[in-house]
């Protein structure tokens, strides 16, 4: 005998409610990650009326996808019509081939390195058996595309970190004190517009002169690129921090005065938290600037990284070069986009509502 549970419908209804609540919550994250189009699809999947979401799906997913397809079609038709010294400009298909090729190269190099170390271990085992000292050497293949990417990302973050360490305290000082602001302002105005290409020679000469130890943690080329990034990406953080600190709510400043907060506790409990949204805006801009600057610096200084990869391919001048450079361009763009999203995510984690 079966009994109908009167709570059955209520249960199902409650589960449904919970599912939709979870989707709404996840939506904030999708938005941050640039994946807003997932939400309406999930809602339909959870049993919502598909009609209600069609417009949204079209706007969030359909239009962007169509635009990308249109771009690829335009590229594919126009590119082959331009003849260069290296042959026709590659279309999307050829660029994709090059991307696959670069990946295969990287895989091959990794296998070769693994072979090299395996052979070295064998040899050393023999040497030890024969009573000799083992000898270790580094594998010296050409850097793969992936290792170039890694180098670039490491460099940009190191330079960006340096810039943050310098810019945030300076910005706080400039925001808190009119005097500090008056002192810093002319310097900021003059140095902000300087191109990375102008800094580079100075930085490389100074680094060669000052950083003379060979056993150091960093390679010289790494330092030169990173410091150039620092010098160029300092300014957005500095300016935005100063602005954020200077525009703290006057009422809150009055509160801190009545409470007689000390300078340090005022900075920690009032200044930093209320300037945080603008500081992060500055950091986000800085990282973007840093990434653009880094590629230029690597190209000009022949320092390892994506910029050098582009330059090498340009010098190489084979029929594959243009395609490979385009792979690098897309890689640079996508990594730049991801870095920006990363900062945006952190920023939205630290931003509070202005509701007091």
């Amino acid at each position: 005998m079966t009994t109908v549970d009167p709570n059955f419908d209520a249960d199902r209804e409650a589960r449904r409610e919970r599912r939709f609540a979870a989707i709404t919550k996840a939506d904030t994250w999708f938005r941050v990650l640039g994946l807003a189009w997932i939400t309406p699809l999930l809602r339909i999947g959870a049993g919502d009326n598909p009609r209600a979401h069609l417009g949204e799906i079209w706007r969030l997913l359909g239009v962007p996808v169509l635009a990308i397809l249109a771009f690829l079609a335009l590229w594919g038709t126009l590119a082959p019509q331009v003849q260069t010294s290296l042959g026709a400009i590659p279309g999307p298909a050829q660029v994709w081939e090059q991307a696959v090729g670069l990946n295969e190269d990287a895989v091959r190099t990794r296998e070769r390195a693994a072979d090299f170390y395996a052979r070295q271990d064998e040899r050393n085992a023999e040497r030890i058996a024969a009573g000799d000292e083992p000898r270790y050497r580094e594998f010296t293949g050409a850097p793969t595309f992936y290792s170039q990417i890694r180098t670039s990302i490491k460099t940009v973050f190191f330079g960006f970190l340096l810039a943050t360490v310098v810019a945030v305290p300076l910005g706080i000082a400039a925001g808190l004190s009119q005097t500090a602001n008056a002192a810093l302002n002319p310097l900021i105005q003059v140095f902000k517009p300087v191109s990375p290409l102008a800094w580079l020679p100075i930085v490389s000469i100074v680094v060669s002169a000052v950083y003379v130890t060979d056993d150091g943690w960093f390679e010289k080329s790494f330092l030169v690129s990173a410091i150039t990034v620092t010098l160029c990406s300092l300014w957005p953080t500095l300016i935005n921090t100063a602005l954020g600190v200077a525009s703290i709510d006057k009422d809150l400043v009055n509160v801190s005065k009545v409470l007689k907060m000390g300078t340090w506790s005022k900075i920690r409990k009032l200044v930093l938290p209320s300037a945080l949204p603008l500081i992060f805006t500055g950091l986000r801009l800085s990282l973007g600037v840093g990434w653009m600057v880094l590629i230029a610096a690597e190209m000009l200084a022949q320092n390892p990284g994506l910029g050098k990869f582009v330059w090498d391919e340009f010098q190489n001048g084979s029929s594959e070069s243009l395609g490979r450079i385009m792979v690098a361009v897309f890689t640079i763009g996508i990594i730049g986009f991801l870095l920006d999203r990363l900062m945006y995510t952190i920023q939205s984690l630290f931003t509070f509502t202005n509701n007091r």
Partner: protein
Amino acid sequence: MAFLDLKNVSKSYGDTPVLQGIDLAVEEGEFLVLLGFSGTGKTTLVNLMAGLEMPTKGEVLFKGRPVTEPGPERGVIFQNYSLMPWLTVNGNVGLAVDTMFPELSRAERAAKVAHYVGMVGLSHAAGRRPAELSGGMRQRVNVARALAMDPEMLLLDEPLSALDALTRGNLAEEIEKIWEADKKTCVLITNDVDEAILLADRVVMMTNGPRATIGKITEVGLPRPRTRKALLEHPDYYAYRQEVLDFLEEYEHGNQSKHASGAAPKPKAVAAETPKAVAAE
């Protein structure tokens, strides 16, 4: 010697005069209410008392000494809550506790914070941030923070003006109750006549700006503790109300007083020159 003494205080911003020739003595333990239309420089007056601003002329004395800077001994309850949005209720009240009792252990500090949060009836919301609180609740936090400074006097700058009428009335009664408990000297700013009469020992009425000054001072002799209900039933209540309203009516629509022309009027003189108000008494 009065607890807080304003002697011939004037304040102007650049060429714009705001307050002129204010003489006022706040006695220890009294609840003084400053009443006037908006834009009459009431907030400026409280800022002068708090030490957040300095008078252009004259001086402000607190227990006989000139006020040169703000401090926790004169706790301020700000008009627009002014809570740190990134701190919880406990965190905001904790700021004041840290200032006054920096040497407390963690447990003592927590107990102290809980005490003041409980005092304004927010124990259930102690972990929430200001954005998750209603206007009335935020103002309670503001009150709790000021009380946690354990000030010698409290300055309340239109603490209830941003709230809806119901919350306003309730919170006014609560402020009266809290004040009854330890009779701290209080100066409250308002533009609400009933609120003024409910809370005040003396109502100080401001003339309209620019060059606002004290127009009239009325002693409210109604018995305490007061509640809105008890007040409505008290025979003298309407007389006080009428007196205050008559004064305000005279200054309505931003008029300068018909009587107070020429030199800056002394408070007593103006009181004598307003026959209507005196008649109502």
